[in-house]
């Protein structure tokens, strides 16, 4: 099935969890926040949250920046 992750299409196995998506993308879960279809998902729920085709995921972190 297909997900949209940070604006890009990602082909994944059906029913994949957020934890597994992060693993696949080699992203440290302790350094990100995840939003699923506009709603924040708490870190403790990544493991139990299975995704559906067409879900839109935002994975955000801290980047270099000062102001604006």
């Amino acid at each position, binding site marked *: 099935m297909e997900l949209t992750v940070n604006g890009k299409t990602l082909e994944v196995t059906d029913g994949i969890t957020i934890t597994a998506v992060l693993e696949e993308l080699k992203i440290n879960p302790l*350094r*990100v926040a995840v939003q699923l279809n506009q709603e924040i998902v708490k870190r403790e729920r990544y493991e139990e949250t299975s995704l559906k085709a067409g879900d839109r995921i935002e994975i955000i972190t801290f*980047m270099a*920046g000062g*102001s604006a």
Partner: protein
Amino acid sequence: MTDATMREDKAMEQSDTLTFAGREFRSRLIIGTGKYPDHRSMQRAHEASGAEIVTVAVRRVNLDRTQESLLDYIDTKKYTLLPNTAGCYTAEEAIKTAFLAREVGLSDMVKLEVIGDQRTLFPDNEELLKATQVLVKEGFVVLPYTNDDPVMARKLEDAGAAAVMPLGAPIGSGLGIRNPYNIKIILEAARVPVIVDAGVGTASDATIAMELGCDGVLMNTAIACAKDPVAMAEAMRHAIRAGRLAHLAGRIPRKLYATASSPLEGMIEL
């Protein structure tokens, strides 16, 4: 420096702290992480600056993994992270960004920016105030970036901002403290720390802000885009300290005419 003055220097650095929301910081300099030539020079500039708070932007993870993670270059045990809402043009965007930033789990502080104009990057104060009210209620430590308007500063403080952060000049402009009198008026009324955010171009600008009585200065471009960011970071560290000491020491009044420093009595007959 003699041992004695070094001791005094240390003692002052320890007792004269920047305090907001029940947190104490020995350094009154807050610096950014943007625009450095590379992460390594940023890391060295952070060390040289003595800053304990560093600002970061909240953005999508880069999925192609070609870029190194910023967080590999910031010791989060040593530095307090201050996520910003840079790039947000409405209260709603800024609030959502703040929530995501908190969810990362490394900070509950937010440098709240709601920009109102692309060319000047001046804040949209109406949206800023709305976002401040919401985020304070949600338990955030809110540090709003505002213009040098004493009325706005008061409204932000009344809304529960942990500090107010008036600009000295437009972000990245390096024009210095353009309206010291407004900053002075903000300082007179403020019951929360006043931190000048934006506009500093060089060390003397930071000193002026501190001499006015500001509690701190936040800067990014002045250090990151200097020819030698590490040397400029060190200069800023001293500039902040010098300005703070001068403020505490109490400057002499300005006078139009000269006042001799040597005794007028005992002049030699020549």
